[in-house]
Every structure is written in structure tokens, then in C-alpha cells.
């Protein structure tokens, strides 16, 4: 079987959901209600064909005049007149005034075919748009004839080998009011424009595409100054890359808490906390660090204006304005209620694709709930996060939790989508509210289990240890008090020790003095005694000598000296 050839439309996203474009050489029906963007889509198909693929196109208009088309599309920066001059576009306005048509007998629509044929051949067109055929039904009021003529028109288009778009108005129960879909068997695209919660969302759906794979969902699309963009919301896949690269949170101590390195690149980070816990400041630090590395960042703000954020962050010493000026930081400030959830997604996708950031901030995601139900928000966020992960863009989502009761939960239940979850909370006590930060989870890395006190200073966020001691977990001035008290106690005991040590020294000195004086006394007594001993010895010697002398005189027998002499030697 021959592979189905396709003609790329060049329209953002449409070629992706149609798996390559519209069926080549065949008509495609685009239907939808009034104001849903049929004409725009059709014209953009021709303009992109001419400008991107060098394929000329014919626009046969039953409604708007060439001048009207030119001025309408000038606002979308499509210069139709220039394309007409370059013979890349031909506009043929078929004027049909039902009141001026007088039918006098048999007729056919050969005139239209001749006009189309001539227009196609004169510029070698490969693309044709007919916008919208219904006008014929109103003007001619002969359905049987029209049906056979339309069949002829479609076979004519096929024989010319042009890729055609036929637009048609939506019917009450059918895709088109006059059942045109039965003639166009190859590809039918339906555009809708629905309003819920007073917010309009445009959607596109491929109803039918014979012989081709195509997305079957309803895809949101956007019409802005660059034309049509369809966002191919991929089905949730789980095959995105997982980087091992780590990037700083912008706060040194937080990096330390996250395994010493910070977030994983391409991961999703959730920061939750009640109002005034410093969530945006945490985000600003991350932005600042990203931009300082020369990476691009988009800040989606749903609550505050760009100037407000820049001013506020200035107060904690973060200059975001410099990054805006250097083109590294882009703010996208929109009220969440400005448009529907899917439109937000479309706008975000588009901006992300254009700006190619390394990281994005969503501040706060909880505001999106205003526009839709929680499951819808969760679905949207999971698609967004999926999209960001496939592109390795780090996402930091801020979630404002409304109540204090449910601290370890998010209002939208998206925590399971997140890789890292930082919880900021108010610790109240002693007439003070202090900010505390801890890491609830952080997949794939060792992380601190400690609560840190979080202080906003002139020069940014500082993380401090909370006091964990005899007084329990304390923060703020309580912690300071307790620490002062502890310090005083410590000082006091230190002084006590010093005092005791000094006493010891003193006692030792005192005793030493005593010892010295006793020694002196002893020396003195010892000298006296020795002197006495010597005196006694001398006396004994003299006595002995006297005795010897005496005995010599008396000529007595020599007597043993031992008893006398031993007395003296013992002293």
C-alpha cells in the first residue's frame, strides 16, 4: 500500500497532531462554529505554504472581500498583498447576493470551477482554500443541484492535485450544517470554542483522518499575533531523561541540605507554604542563581506584576532586573482568570518553546485552581511537568497552601509529581511568627532531615539552625534568648572553674610558703642540735682524755673503751 503523502501546514503544532500535515492532493474539511478560527487556520495554511514551503495558494472567499482579508490578516503580521504581488497567493472573492440571484432554468457551477481552475493555473497553486461553501446553499437554495455540483467540485480539486481546505459552519447535530463531511472523506478537523467558568478556550480535534495516525484528543489552540498555535499535549509518558547534573538552589545552606549540591537539573521542585512564608523569595534565589550561571529562566507569575516582584526581591538584595535587561529572565505575568487552564498551558508551552529556558518558576500554581477544578489542574500540571522534563527544564512550582491543618499536603495533590518538596512553615510562639524550612522529600539524593529557621535579610535568605536543647525546638528571639541564656550559663561555669583553679594555685602557693618556713625552722633547729651534738662530742672526748690521763697517772690496766665511745658515736 502506498504511503499517504502529506502537505505540511507549517502551523505550530498542527503538523504534529496530524502526523505530518494534511493529506496531499486531497480536500480537508475544517468545521466549527462562528468565530472559532476556521478562516484564520485556512489562510495561515496558505501563507505558511507560500512563505515556508514556496507553494502558491488560492483563497476562494465567499464571505470576506480581499481588502477585508488583507486588513484582517495584517494584524497577524501576514502581508497578503505582498504575497499576491509575488504570485504566491491569489484571492478570489465570490460575491453571492441571494436577493440578486434570479434563476431562470437549468444551470451548474461550472463558473466556479473555471475561476478556480484559472486561479490555480495562473500561479501554479498547490494549495486551495474555499471559505465557506455554505454561502452557496443560502444563495441558491437548491440542495439537490448543489450536492451534485459539490461532488463535482471535490473531484475537480482532486484532479488538480491541490491540497485543499474547505471550511464549513457547524451544524446542530452534525459537524457541518449541510453535511459536507460526506463529500470529504479524507480528513475532517473540528474547531470549537467553549466557555466554562466564563473563560473561553479554543480547541481543535481531528475527527477523521483516513489512512493516517493522528491524535484523537481535543487539543487547545491559541490565536495570537503570530497566528495559530496548537499545543500537542503529549500523553503522559515516563521516558524523559534524568540528568545527574546538580544545580544550586541559590542558597548555600539549602544546597548543603540537599546532599551538598542542590536540585537535579530537569527535576520538579515544589515549594509549599502558607502566605508570607517566603516562597517567592526562595524562588527568586533560584532564579538569581540560574541567571548568574548564564541560563535562561521564565517566571510565570499569576499574582504579582513584574515590577512588583522585582521591587520586592530588591528588598532582600536580589537584583532580578539585571537579568531581565540581559535577556536571561522573562516574566510572564497573567491573571490566572484571564483565560482557561488549557490556554494557560498553551501560552506557557509557546513561550517555553520560544524562549528556551533552563528553568521555569510557576508562582503560584494554586491560583490556577480558580479557573478550573482540582483534577483538571492536576492533569494540566502533570502535562506541563512532563513537557518540561522531556526538555530537561527545571521547574520550581510554588503552591500556596490555604489552611494550616494540612501542612503536609497540597491543595491540588500534585506532590506525587514532584521530585523535591520544600515545606515552608510558620513557627509561632512567644508572640512571634518565625519561618521554618524543611525538606519533605527529595528523590534520588541524600537530604537533611533538619528543620532550619529561615530568615529574610537585606542580603537574602539565611538558613539558621533551630535551637534544639533543654528548652525544646526554639526559633526566633526565643532561640536567641535561650542561646543567650545558655551562653551566660556557660560563661558563669567557666568563670567558676577559673576561680577554683585560681584557689588551687593560691592554696598551693600558701602551702609552699608554709613548707618553706618549716624547712627554715627545721634548718635552724638542725643547726642548733648539731652544734649541741658537737659540743657534747667534744666534751666526751675531753672526758675520755681526762680519764685516760687519769688512768695513766694511776697506772691502771687498760679498760675496754667500747661502752663509753659507743655512747658518743650514737649522737
Amino acid at each position, binding site marked *: 500500500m502506498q504511503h499517504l503523502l502529506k502537505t505540511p501546514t507549517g502551523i505550530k503544532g498542527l503538523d504534529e497532531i496530524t502526523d505530518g500535515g494534511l493529506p496531499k492532493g486531497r480536500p480537508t474539511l475544517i468545521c466549527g462554529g462562528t468565530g472559532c478560527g476556521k478562516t484564520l487556520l485556512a489562510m495561515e495554511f496558505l501563507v505558511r505554504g507560500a512563505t515556508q514551503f514556496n507553494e502558491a495558494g488560492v483563497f476562494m472567499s465567499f464571505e470576506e472581500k480581499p481588502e477585508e482579508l488583507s486588513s484582517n490578516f495584517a494584524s497577524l503580521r501576514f502581508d497578503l498583498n505582498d504575497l499576491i504581488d509575488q504570485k504566491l497567493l491569489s484571492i*478570489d472573492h*465570490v*460575491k*453571492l447576493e441571494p436577493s*440578486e*440571484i*434570479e*434563476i*431562470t*432554468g*437549468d*444551470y*451548474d*457551477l*461550472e*463558473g*466556479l470551477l*473555471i*475561476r478556480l*481552475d*484559472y*486561479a490555480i493555473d495562473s500561479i501554479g497553486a498547490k494549495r486551495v482554500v474555499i471559505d465557506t461553501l455554505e454561502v*452557496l446553499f443560502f444563495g*441558491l437554495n437548491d440542495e439537490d443541484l448543489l450536492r451534485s455540483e459539490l461532488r463535482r467540485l471535490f473531484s475537480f480539486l482532486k484532479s488538480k492535485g491541490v491540497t485543499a481546505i474547505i471550511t464549513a459552519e457547524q451544524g446542530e447535530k452534525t459537524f457541518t450544517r449541510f453535511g459536507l463531511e460526506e463529500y470529504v472523506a479524507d480528513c475532517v478537523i473540528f474547531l470549537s470554542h467553549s466557555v466554562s467558568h466564563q473563560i473561553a478556550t479554543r480547541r481543535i480535534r481531528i475527527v477523521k483522518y483516513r489512512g493516517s495516525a493522528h491524535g484523537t484528543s481535543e487539543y487547545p489552540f491559541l490565536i495570537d499575533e503570530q497566528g495559530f498555535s496548537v499545543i500537542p499535549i503529549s500523553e503522559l509518558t515516563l521516558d524523559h531523561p534524568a540528568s545527574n547534573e546538580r544545580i544550586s538552589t541559590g542558597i548555600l545552606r539549602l544546597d548543603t541540605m540537599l546532599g551538598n549540591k542542590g536540585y537535579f537539573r530537569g527535576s520538579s521542585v515544589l515549594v509549599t507554604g502558607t502566605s508570607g512564608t517566603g516562597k517567592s523569595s526562595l524562588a527568586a534565589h533560584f532564579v538569581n542563581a540560574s541567571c548568574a550561571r548564564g541560563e535562561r529562566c521564565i517566571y510565570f507569575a499569576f499574582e504579582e506584576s513584574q515590577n512588583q516582584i522585582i521591587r520586592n526581591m530588591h528588598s532582600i538584595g536580589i537584583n532580578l532586573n539585571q537579568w531581565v535587561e540581559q535577556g536571561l529572565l522573562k516574566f510572564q505575568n497573567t491573571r490566572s482568570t484571564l483565560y482557561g487552564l488549557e490556554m494557560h498551558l498553551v501560552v506557557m508551552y509557546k513561550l517555553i518553546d520560544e524562549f528556551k529556558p533552563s528553568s521555569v518558576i510557576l508562582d503560584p500554581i494554586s491560583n490556577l485552581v480558580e479557573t478550573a477544578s482540582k483534577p483538571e489542574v492536576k492533569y494540566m500540571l502533570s502535562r506541563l511537568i512532563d513537557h518540561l522534563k522531556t526538555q530537561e527544564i527545571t521547574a520550581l512550582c510554588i503552591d500556596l497552601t490555604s489552611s494550616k491543618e494540612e501542612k503536609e499536603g497540597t491543595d491540588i495533590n500534585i506532590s506525587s509529581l514532584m521530585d523535591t518538596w520544600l515545606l515552608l512553615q510558620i513557627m509561632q510562639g512567644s508572640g512571634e511568627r518565625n519561618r521554618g524550612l524543611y525538606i519533605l522529600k527529595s528523590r534520588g539524593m541524600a537530604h537533611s532531615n533538619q528543620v532550619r529557621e529561615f530568615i529574610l535579610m537585606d542580603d537574602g535568605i539565611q538558613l539558621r539552625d533551630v535551637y534544639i536543647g533543654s528548652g525544646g525546638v526554639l526559633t526566633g528571639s526565643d532561640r536567641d534568648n535561650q542561646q543567650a541564656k545558655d551562653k551566660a550559663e556557660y560563661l558563669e561555669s567557666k568563670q567558676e572553674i577559673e576561680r577554683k583553679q585560681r584557689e588551687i594555685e593560691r592554696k598551693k602557693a600558701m602551702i609552699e610558703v608554709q613548707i618553706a618556713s618549716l624547712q627554715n625552722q627545721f634548718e635552724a633547729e638542725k643547726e642548733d642540735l648539731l652544734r649541741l651534738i658537737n659540743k657534747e662530742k667534744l666534751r666526751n672526748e675531753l672526758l675520755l682524755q681526762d680519764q685516760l690521763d687519769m688512768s695513766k697517772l694511776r697506772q691502771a690496766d687498760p679498760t675496754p673503751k667500747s661502752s663509753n665511745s659507743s655512747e658518743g658515736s650514737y649522737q
Partner: protein
Amino acid sequence: MSHPTHDTRQYLLRLYVAGQTPKSISAFANLKNICEEHLQGRYQIEVIDLLINPTLAKDEQIFALPTLIRKLPEPVIKIIGDLSNTERVLVGLDIKVLAPEHGLKNAQP
């Protein structure tokens, strides 16, 4: 009813066709008959084949064939079909008929 009897205006009629189809042949024959009957001596018919002059289809805002355009007298009037419904052709081209039974019809446009 302002010109009850004598219409002296000159008619310039252009019949647009695409080749010699049965419809174009019968359209021409029908036109010829009507003109002979009601506009004798003051009409001129030009047959234009769009297969030869396709640009005229756009210029003259033609989508159905055959189409007859009354170029004169002003204003320009366009009617569609093979002109087999004579009554509609007369009304469409604003041709005053002499027969009294058609008098009422004339007032309509």
C-alpha cells in the same frame, strides 16, 4: 407601470457559457426567442465562452453557468440558468411586455 406601452431602451445582453454544452445551446436559443418576441430591433447578444476567456469569470463575478448579464440598460442585471422559464427571464431582465396579462407581474421588482 410608468412606461405602460412603449419601452424604447436598447438592450445589450451578454451570455456567458462554457463551451458548446446542451445547456449553453438551449440558453442561447431561449434568449434569441425572447428577444425576437419582446425586444425586436433593439437588442444585441454577445456570447462569451469562459473556456476561452476564463479571467472574465472572476471579473464579472460569475459562478453559475449559463449566466446572462444585462449590460444595458443600466443598472447591470445578472440572471442564471438556461433561460427556459420565460416569465422569470422577462421579470429578471425587466422587459416590459405588451400583453396585458403580464402587466401585474411587471410591478414586482
